[in-house]
């Protein structure tokens, strides 16, 4: 890990020009919907920013979130900012192991009490035995680490909303961070994995302004999760014209038509993939021919099949509707037969009255 004291020094040591750095600040500010006047402020603040202590807890996760952030082909500004923070504890990345690793966490918690950011990826099993680190259950470690954190950033859908571990039948009784910690500001950056820019953007915002950005109802930064994929999708005109790929290998698929019928969740998935894109803006799932699976949404794994379109009814059909028909038929026929009997009786009484 580099040891420069300010971010500006780090960037210069890596050969990043001031022009490139200002471009990054401009991009970040505009993506995060900050006023233009804040760009130089951000640039100055970032350049002068002291190393921020960060404790990164990995629970029931797949390391995909870390991978997305670190495994770029070329070093990026996002990656550099990530490098710049004082990642005091990250059991995947840190060199220390065993007792030394845990000691580092404890030291950071003590030294930066009330100031460190707690990043969490992965969901937390409420049954303690299911996942432990150094003999400490995930549950205890989270609660313990959260006490003196300035804020918590739940990175990835597992930490934010439970994700895959919480999907039915949820064998570990996993829950997201927000179910356990209620007395700290929590910001969710969901996605499977989340966009790296969303993670660094939030950190940059915090480094710059010392506050957390505006959030939506699901505690996601509005800057990255304010719009759905569908509204930003370059295939939207095909949707509007009613041109759809029916299968993954038909003419429509080759022509790049809308993937709505193939289960694309673009209309109900809120994320910045369609315009920020991945791999330095190279592509995103829809561009490579697969519908959005809505990974930034709570319960995305359970809510509907990946290849079922949004409009599909999500229920078992045949047997229940068939039994409804039978119930209706029996009730109807029964009502009619009873009415027939009643009618006969009344007719007889009527005749007797004559």
């Amino acid at each position, binding site marked *: 890990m580099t040891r420069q004291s300010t971010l500006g020094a780090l960037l210069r040591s890596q050969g990043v020009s001031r022009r490139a750095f200002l471009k990054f600040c401009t991009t970040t500010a505009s993506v995060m919907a900050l006023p233009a006047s804040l760009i130089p402020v951000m640039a100055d603040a970032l350049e002068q920013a002291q190393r921020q202590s960060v404790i990164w807890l990995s629970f029931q996760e797949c390391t995909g979130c870390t991978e997305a952030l670190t495994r770029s082909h070329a070093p990026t500004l996002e990656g550099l900012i990530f490098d710049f923070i004082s990642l005091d504890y990250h059991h995947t990345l840190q060199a220390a192991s065993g007792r030394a690793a845990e000691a580092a966490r404890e030291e950071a918690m003590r030294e930066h009490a009330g100031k460190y950011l707690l990043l969490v990826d992965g969901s937390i099993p409420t049954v303690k035995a299911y996942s432990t680190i150094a003999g400490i259950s995930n549950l205890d470690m989270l609660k313990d680490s959260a006490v003196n954190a300035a804020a918590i950033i739940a990175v990835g859908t597992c930490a934010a909303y439970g994700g895959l571990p919480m999907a039915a039948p949820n064998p570990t009784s996993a829950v997201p961070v927000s179910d356990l910690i209620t007395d700290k500001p929590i910001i969710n950056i969901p996605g499977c994995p989340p966009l790296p820019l969303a993670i660094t953007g939030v950190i940059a915002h915090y480094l710059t302004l010392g506050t957390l950005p505006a959030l939506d109802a699901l505690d996601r930064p509005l800057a990255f999760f304010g719009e759905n994929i569908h509204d930003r999708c370059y295939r939207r005109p095909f949707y509007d014209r009613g041109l759809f790929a029916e299968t993954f290998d038909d003419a429509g698929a080759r022509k790049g038509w809308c993937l709505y019928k193939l289960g694309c969740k673009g209309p109900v998935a809120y994320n910045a993939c369609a315009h920020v894109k991945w791999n330095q803006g190279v592509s995103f799932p829809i561009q490579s021919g697969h519908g959005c699976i809505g990974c930034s949404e709570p319960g995305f794994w359970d809510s509907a099949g990946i290849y079922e379109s949004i409009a599909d009814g*999500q229920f078992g059909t045949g047997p229940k509707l068939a039994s409804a028909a039978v119930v*209706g038929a029996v009730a109807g026929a029964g009502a009619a037969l009873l009415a027939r009997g009643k009618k006969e009786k009344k007719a007889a009484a009527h005749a007797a009255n004559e």
Partner: protein
Amino acid sequence: MTLLEFARGPAIHWALIILVAGTIWRLLGVLALTRGGDLSRPRDAFGNYKGYRTVFSRAWPSSEFNVATRYQTIVAYLFHFATLIVVVGITAHIEFIQSLTGASWPALPNAVGVAIGIVALVSLLALILRRLTNPSIYCSNLGDYITWILVAAPLITGLMAFAHLGPRYETMLAIHILSVALMFIWFPFSKLMHSIWFVFSRAQSGLTYAHKGVQI
């Protein structure tokens, strides 16, 4: 469970169950009643079968009533056809029907669907306006108004969901599906059943009159 999950899951599911059970219940509960026997001799031995023509011939008023019923006939036709086209022509609807039945067909371009949806809504408004302004003719009851609202709601919410008006898309979509679920639930217990009764009712009268040699 999100609103959308509730709407396209249990809500629409139970609505369909009630729709199916209720409709069959009401249909059989009426059709399995006793048949009135008219013992009188028909005017023509096989003339009664001509009565079934009424099922089709009554699709348009006779020239005798053309002028008096013109507004209502034309607007009602606009409404019924526009609604039918929207129901079976919009991609999302076809997807829903396909998920239910497996059947599928090409959809209309969205712009056309929206235009026809607006025609349906406007014609429905035109019908309620006439109903409201001519109370002595329509003798409206609560059921008439509830039915109107429950039919208008899916049209309004569907158009809003498509246009991304109002709440976020998935919420609007959920509201749209819920409004349809309400309409499905209301269907078996309301005058919406006329979409089935008309066949039996016309046939019944056609036969009654054909028995006497009268074509109605």
